[in-house]
């Protein structure tokens, strides 16, 4: 496994920063209203990065979600967790909304956790998108991208 190598030893602080993307850019979340009770959620995953299938969770506010069906990922045997599935490139999930009001605004939150092939894993993150559902029989909405995360306290 290759080390990323941000090494700052003995005050020689000029070492190269690792070529890593911020969490929200490595795993860019967006969503759009497909019809009055369906949201299409999408993660665009940067090259060299992957998401864990079983770490992806969605919630919607207001309202409740039916059980979304996540596509099968690439299966890998993990020594500690057993069989795990991962996604690369992108993953698209249809979210069935229950008791949603057509034409209204909903906020979709996506929990995810992924890693980079360079040998690092990112902490779990929550990304949020607020979108307007189409009216009954209306046209699908445009995809809305999650806003970049707030600047962390220490950075």
């Amino acid at each position, binding site marked *: 496994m290759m*080390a*990323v190598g*941000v090494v700052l030893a003995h005050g020689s602080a000029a070492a190269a920063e690792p070529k890593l993307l911020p969490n929200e850019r490595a795993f860019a979340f967006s969503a759009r209203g497909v019809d009055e009770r369906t949201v299409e959620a999408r993660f665009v995953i940067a090259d060299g990065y992957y998401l864990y299938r079983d770490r992806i969770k969605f919630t919607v506010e207001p309202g409740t979600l039916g059980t979304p069906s996540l596509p099968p990922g690439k299966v890998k045997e993990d020594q500690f967790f057993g069989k795990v599935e991962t996604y690369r490139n992108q993953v698209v999930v249809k979210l069935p909304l229950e008791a949603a009001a057509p034409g209204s605004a909903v906020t979709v939150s996506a929990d995810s956790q992924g890693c980079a092939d360079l*040998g*690092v894993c990112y902490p779990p993150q929550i990304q949020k998108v607020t979108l307007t559902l189409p009216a009954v029989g209306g046209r699908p909405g445009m995809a809305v991208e999650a806003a970049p995360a707030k600047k962390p*306290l220490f950075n």
Partner: protein
Amino acid sequence: MSSNRWMGAGLIAAGVLALVAGLLWRQLEADKRSALLDGTTLLALALPDVQGKDQPIGQWKGKVLVVNFWATWCEPCREEMPRFMSLQEELGANGLQFVGIAVDQPDKVLRFANEIHLNYPALIGGYGAIELSKTLGNQFGALPFTVVVDRAGGVVLTQLGPINEAKLRSIIGQLI
């Protein structure tokens, strides 16, 4: 004449810009260094172990301390831990101390520690540990992140991503 004057003004502006950029750069470098060299915050912390008992990091002051931020959900973290265990086994008597800070839940940490017969303390940092690691230079809060603290309590190395064993040995060798 006027083009000369413009050129002169341009040169002065370029000079001022270069000076400002240089000063900013120096300030940035100084900030980075001071953040890296000061292990006070880390050593002043106490975190619970897997039994829930608070363990002050300061109890290992005076040793060569290798603090490794990890999690069970981080495969590259789990992969490098057996190498840390070998070093602990080999050099523990010479004053080397590994301490793992897990960005994780105690039950998972305990299960994994038992599974690999972890021979150094595993403290539970939770997600707060991510913020702590950011104060030590871990820009994206990613794991594994490893910090080497010398006997005087100064941070001499931080590394994001798996650490090369030869490099770690060499640094430890200089400090022990």
